């Protein structure tokens, strides 16, 4: 099975949020719902010796996907391509998958009353195009492809990076596929479970302005 996913080079990412808006446009996502968000991590350090980077997050395409595991209806499933997807027509809305996703990157579609998430833009990739967020990415920092295919954009990006600069979000046994490239010359990597919204206001609009 292939291991399709996104890879993001945080050394390059300039925090422009184009990927976020591209995703919303492409997928017609309602206000207040997200499949892809860009979090600012930092600044950390002592002024003026600061570090900061942006962390775009969306489904990490876990190899051992807990969301699929807990889904009672098979609405959350892995397709023949290895992609973790949601068949919204099967979703009963139990939200167990949302509880089970270690990163909270599943989204509740209020109108359709079903769970959604990043689809890796299968409608585009199956027609030979790049996912919307990859195509828009202003810093050429996002890549899509199959980690098992050494010729894919993702494999090439990972291979070009120093292994010490290749990270994944905290792996709780779910084996996230998405790789983040961040080298020490830009900033030290912060494990995702250490990232908390800096804001005391538990306000979705304000969330993660800095974490």
């Amino acid at each position, binding site marked *: 099975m292939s291991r399709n996913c996104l890879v993001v080079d945080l050394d*390059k990412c*300039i*925090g*422009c*949020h*184009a990927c*976020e*808006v*591209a995703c*919303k*446009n*492409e*997928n*017609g996502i309602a*206000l*207040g719902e997200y*499949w892809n968000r860009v979090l600012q991590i930092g*600044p950390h350090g002592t*002024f*003026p010796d*600061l570090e*900061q*980077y*942006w962390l775009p997050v969306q489904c990490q395409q876990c190899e051992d996907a807990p969301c699929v595991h807990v889904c009672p209806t098979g609405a959350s*499933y892995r*397709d023949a*391509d290895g992609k973790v*997807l*949601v*068949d*919204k027509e099967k979703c009963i809305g139990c939200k167990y998958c949302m509880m089970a996703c270690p990163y909270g990157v599943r989204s509740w*579609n209020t109108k359709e009353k079903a769970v959604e*998430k990043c*689809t890796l*833009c*299968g*409608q*585009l990739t*199956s*027609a030979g195009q790049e996912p*919307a967020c990859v*195509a*828009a*990415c*202003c*810093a*050429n*920092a996002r890549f899509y492809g199959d980690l098992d295919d050494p010729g894919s954009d993702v494999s090439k990006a990972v291979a070009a990076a120093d292994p010490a600069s290749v990270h994944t979000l905290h792996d709780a046994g779910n084996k996230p596929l998405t790789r983040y490239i961040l080298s020490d010359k*830009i*900033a030290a990597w912060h494990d995702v479970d250490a990232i908390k919204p*800096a*804001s*005391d*206001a538990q*306000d*979705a*609009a*304000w969330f993660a*302005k*800095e974490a």
Partner: protein
Amino acid sequence: MTRRSFMKTAAVTGAVGALGLGVAHNMAPSDKAWADNDVHEVRTSCRACIANCGVIATVSNGRVIKLRGDSIDPMSKGRMCPKGLSGIQALYHPNRNKYPMKRVGAKPGNQWERISWDEAAKTVAQHMIDMRDKTGKHGLLCTTGGGGNPQFFSPPRFRNFWGAGNVFEPGCAQCYLPRNFTMPLVNGIGDTSIADSGCSELYKPAKYGGLTEVYVIWGTGPAWHSPSTSGRCVAELRENGCKTVVVDPRFTADASKADVWLPIKPGTDMAMMLGWMHYIIENKLYEKIPGYETFCEQWTNLPFLVDPRDNVSLPPVAEDITKDGQLLRASAVFDDVDAANEGYVYFDTEKGEVTKAFALGPDNDGTYHPQMFGTVDVKLKDGSTITCKTAFEAYKDRCADFDLDTVAEITGCKKEKIIEAIELYCSSAHGGISLGVATDMYPGSAQAAIGAAALDCMTAHLWHSGCPANKVGGQGSKGLTSCESTIFPSGFIGDTKYEFQTNDAILERLGYCEHKGLGGWMHSHIPTVLSAVLTGEPYQPKVWIERSGNKMAALGNSSSWVDAFPKFDLIVHGYMYPTSFTTEAADIVFPVCEWLENAFAQNRLNVNLMRKPVTNLFEAADEIMMWGKIAEAMSDPSSELYDANMEACMDDEKIGSPMVPAYWKTINEYWDWVAQQGGDKSVTTMEQAMEAFPMKWAEDDEYWGGTTYDGYCQVNAGAGVAGKVDPGMEGSSADDGKVVYTGFSTAARDIKDNPKKCGPYADTMLYLGRHGNEKFDMPAAVVDYNPMPYYFTPEDQSEYGDEYPLRLTEGRIPYFHHGTLRNNPYLRELYPAPELWISPGNAGKYGIVDGDWVNIKSPRTDGKDVFRDITTGLSTDTVMAGGKDAKFGPSEFAPGEELTANGQSVVKDGIFAVARVTKGIAEGTVYMERFWNPEFLEDGSDGRKSWTTENMNVLTKNTGYFNPEFGTYTLRGIHVKVAKAQRPEGIWYEPTDFEPWMPEPTENTGGAFYTK
């Protein structure tokens, strides 16, 4: 995965079109049934900011349903930023202005009645004719938007045709003009704004030798001002190993990736520049630039002698600076020099004598041994002897007090970091400084532009590979070049047959004589215009035609304009949606187009793009039709509304200049004209252009391979900067073996024997202030345009620093362009309210935690700094300010009484923002970007709140000192105080609040003046 299984699984709403594109929409269903098979793509270009990235729009059944970048664009390489991607939501916004309207209720207010284009145009014409007959033509005021407005020249064009009046734009003196005008006069090449001018060199693929090795990003933020073009470019530079220095109070994306970040205190850039110069001179770095050790000696005007007799007048804010005047003219020294062969002089150390400076060539460069520093006794031809400094010595004196300890103190940056930055900058000649808009927002705008350009001169960055000032790119094989459909005003390039305006009318432009740099774009001085509106002196502006977004959000101290609106007979607003300006000021509203409805030819390196009318909605039309239809209403000799100039401007033959097309009567004619500007002669109609563009008119090899570096001293005559043939060298070809040095061209206008040096000592500016740049000699400005940069303490600091302890600055964010897109649902969801960045220390001091709402006030909201009478033009001979002496009446040097206390009291409660407590800003500095709240224009709301609630431009300053060159006022680095507050009532903040603004698709009507 099969299509079918995808349809069942993926969360794409809607159907899949014939091209297999996921149809994304949040739009209400259409009432018109379309055949399911019409899906096509239109390759166009974005205009949600100044960058013009290539875009592919997917149109399904007449509706634009998707935008993505066009990878043919070599600058954006197919990328698109959030502003551009929001084009569909902007296009189909439910609140679009759909047809012309006239006000039926009181001002401010939102009661309108639909009228026809004809009635609207005639109403404006009637008021103009009345004004002409009663008080004269100069009562016309035309204004527009700044960067982002492709028909930037529409207002001066209309005004010039009309024959008199004033033009402004909130940027101009506060944006780009200071750099755009000044830098070429110093470096002889061009400005280095990566946002505005593009800096094509930075885009050059490394394989053509274009690698920038050191890049100083000074007061500019490519990552956020144009993520897909300049942000992308700088990301690629960094990836290719370019080292960067970022000078910016904010810890921006570019700062976080820089090798050195200098978190400069806002408004202290001049001190920083003088500090860099001090260090460079002290450590002789100017002669240690690897590979270019003699550049400074050979190619700058720094060895030239300064005339100590020149009694330059100094700016009132910096009367303690060294009093160095114009460069000594050769005619003062040599008997055989007069106006016909005027030149500069230097002291030759081999010859041991004062020598007339000359242009270096392959045969003579061994004979040039200038003395760089010190003084020289010069015997003048009248027999007297004077002691002259070299220009470099003058610079040395100018920056003498700016040792790095002092500079560290003023700028708040660490000395070691400053040294690290300078050393990095001087470690390679391949690179240079991109100066951003930040410094344009201070009365030091011209000084910063001179400073940055002078630094690149002193350090041999100019015209070496990697320098942002370079203009590169050769001619392509197809013989096409640049394309652009800017519509020029009469008198801008070449002459017209018909004389539309008199010299007197030009001199009458408000504030122009004092601030001659404004002539670069034919603009007037904004505060002087405001003063004239309020006092009627020297004359009363009466009809105002404004074509842009929200002046209340873009003009400094914007509440000071409230008292001005009632003084006009008629105010016209042309825009896509109602804004605060509409409710506050407008009597007539014209519906103009979004960029997806517009046409524009745009060059992008070796590709020519064409913005195409992808669709056209309602009765909206390109803004050019607004100006044209008003003119047309006055063009009929048999009508009561006749004006001869307006008749002439409808007629190409009468105008008699290919550079100045007449107005168009139908939109189709205009589109065809745009199509003809695309650079391909065979394309004459928009219909053809639809197919023909975008057009890659040169292969990379042809385009980039043609660039010659170090061309100032090596090239043959064939190719100069940007393929421009140097005057006098025409006729020689690339391979005739005749090697000529092109040099740099920066001499003042009276210099005939141009020594072809770059001119860090800006004799050119000094000359400009005294003579102007018109075809006639203008009266001198009261204060001379100083040839070297200087620093002065910002007025807010010296006057209000104790009471308003925090210094507020601004900078772009990736979500909005100026005042635009605040009504865009996806973007407002991302950034629902303005942030106030504040350091943890300051936040703690004021009891503020992250996410708190805060209230912000400045001396302008508190009645302490009220706009005052600065009427100029009391001396009718010169139309000049009366001088510093108050007996000549009020002037900007001696302002009269307060004029706008009433308007400014509207904002006495200050404004509100969300505090973002961050280490990314220094103690003592705060940051906030412009904002306004279109939600207050919804039915039943108080429209005034749209610009008084979260708009930082009611805090900024249009009072006090304006620099002599451009009259720049203060939009950044103003002083404020902050306090914890409550979220203001009525603003939209939660994501779902913006639901009413989700797009409603609309039929393609062709718009107004469309002929099938």
